[in-house]
């Protein structure tokens, strides 16, 4: 054995200085390029604003729509009365939706599974179909329950659904027959979740792209913060509302 083990290790570990310099430069340049390329691209994660929330503050708080919708068992559901005082996440979607609706529901569901019972019992997640023709009770109920049994599935006639969306200030959903496929047609609809706090007002919305960790940060706070006239959060939220920070109510997916 011409060399001792340590001599071998030394020869392996240390290469001529000139070579190391070149290699180090190459490694640093490659790693730097990769990292900068990644960091330079827009991250889908939502930025946190001054309030500390990941949601998008509305210019002015929005009231819950005064509508009576229909549960899957056919009984009426007065949205304002049934969700009074609860943190209510309201979303308009449909079961044939390929991306936005299931991703939103899966995200909220995953985070609720990590929250305490005391927190989750003070919140309601309401999913209102905008495709009542295809979203029959037999279809909508099980579809939503696969995410979370506590989620509330609602439907209604076209006029009621139209009014509910208009009251929120979003563009009512419309059929998109150009995007036909196995499901027949798609629906162009608002992609954001409205978060109504215990004062029954929506101070912010959560657009598509909201990550589970964003929900995990915000939902417990939305449940536990005091909202209303004496709430500093609400005051701050109203003060921060500006066109630049508001969600576009007409975002269609």
């Amino acid at each position: 054995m011409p060399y001792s083990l340590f001599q071998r290790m030394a020869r392996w570990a240390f290469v001529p200085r000139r070579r190391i310099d070149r290699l180090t430069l190459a490694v640093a340049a490659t790693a730097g390029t990769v990292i900068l390329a990644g960091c330079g691209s827009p991250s889908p994660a939502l930025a946190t604003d001054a309030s500390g929330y990941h949601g998008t503050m509305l210019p002015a708080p929005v009231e819950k729509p005064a509508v009576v919708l229909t549960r899957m068992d056919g009984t009426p559901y007065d949205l304002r009365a049934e969700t009074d005082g609860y943190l209510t996440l309201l979303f308009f979607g449909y079961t044939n939706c390929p991306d936005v609706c299931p991703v939103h529901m899966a995200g909220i569901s995953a985070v609720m599974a990590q929250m305490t019972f005391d927190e989750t019992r003070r919140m309601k997640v309401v999913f209102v179909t905008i495709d009542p023709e295809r979203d029959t009770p037999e279809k909508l109920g099980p579809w939503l329950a696969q995410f979370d049994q506590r989620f509330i599935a609602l439907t209604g006639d076209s006029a009621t659904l139209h009014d509910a969306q208009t009251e929120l200030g979003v563009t009512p959903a419309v059929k998109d027959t150009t995007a036909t496929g196995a499901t027949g047609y798609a629906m162009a609809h608002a992609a954001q979740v409205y978060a109504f706090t215990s004062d029954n007002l929506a101070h912010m919305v959560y657009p598509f792209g909201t990550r589970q960790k964003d929900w995990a940060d915000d939902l417990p706070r939305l449940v536990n913060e005091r909202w209303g006239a004496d709430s500093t959060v609400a005051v701050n939220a109203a003060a921060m509302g500006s066109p630049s920070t508001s969600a576009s109510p007409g975002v269609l997916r």
Partner: protein
Amino acid sequence: MTDPAAVQWWCSALGATWNWEWQPYPGVWLFMLLFAAAYWWLARRLTAGADTTRTPWRTVAAVAGVICLWLTLDWPVGKLGAGYLASVHAFQFVMLAMIIPPLLLFGIRPQAVARLAARPRLVRVISVLTVPFPSMIVFTIVMVATHVPSVVDGLMVSQLGSFGLDMAWFLSGLSFWWSLLVPVPARPRFVPLLRIVYLFFGTLAHLFIAMWLLISRYPVYATYELAPPFTGLSPLDDQQVAGGVMLALGSTFILLSVTIVFFRWLGVGAERDEPTAPDGFATR
């Protein structure tokens, strides 16, 4: 995001609904064509006239390496890994960085390696690119950097970024594994104990990354969390499968490699197809 209807040259995240309709990726084909040609030249032409009848396993490894490389990059694995499933992305990583490079390198016959000595320029380039300690550092840096969420989410949305990621894994893998499998003239032999130490430390980061994916409470990559779902797996389940793939597939392969090195150290199953070394360097 790129128009989903447009032909892509390399797989990237489109944000479009998944379908099983086959898609061509011309960039993958071109890369495979060029790579296979270069590899053929290295593995075969350099052995012209030499007795290669006693190296069937090297032929198997070479063919398997090329086929695996193609299958890992092309549709559907490439497309699924680029924009839909973190588990497939992890599978691609393990294949490109930890399994395909050693297969390809093992596929280079000792006779070809021996004849490389006659090409000093090529030897110099290979020598610089495969110095063990820097190779291990580069391999680790690439492995860690390419699993940072902002890097992954930033790169996967573009074809160039996705191509860069795949190449970073593959090339750093080749550089890392070269020292273990292919001797370089004028470099001391890589003794078995050092090989084991090198393998252990060189692949340590992948264990931490796998564990991180397994224990994270929420999905770490927006690309896969927000991708249109098409399986029953939730994004977190998918991420845990990704960690499992890295642990199960990657670690098993590393353990197998260490075991082989160890038993060869003991003299069991020593390779018998080595040529005599007229130029003074060993081939293992």
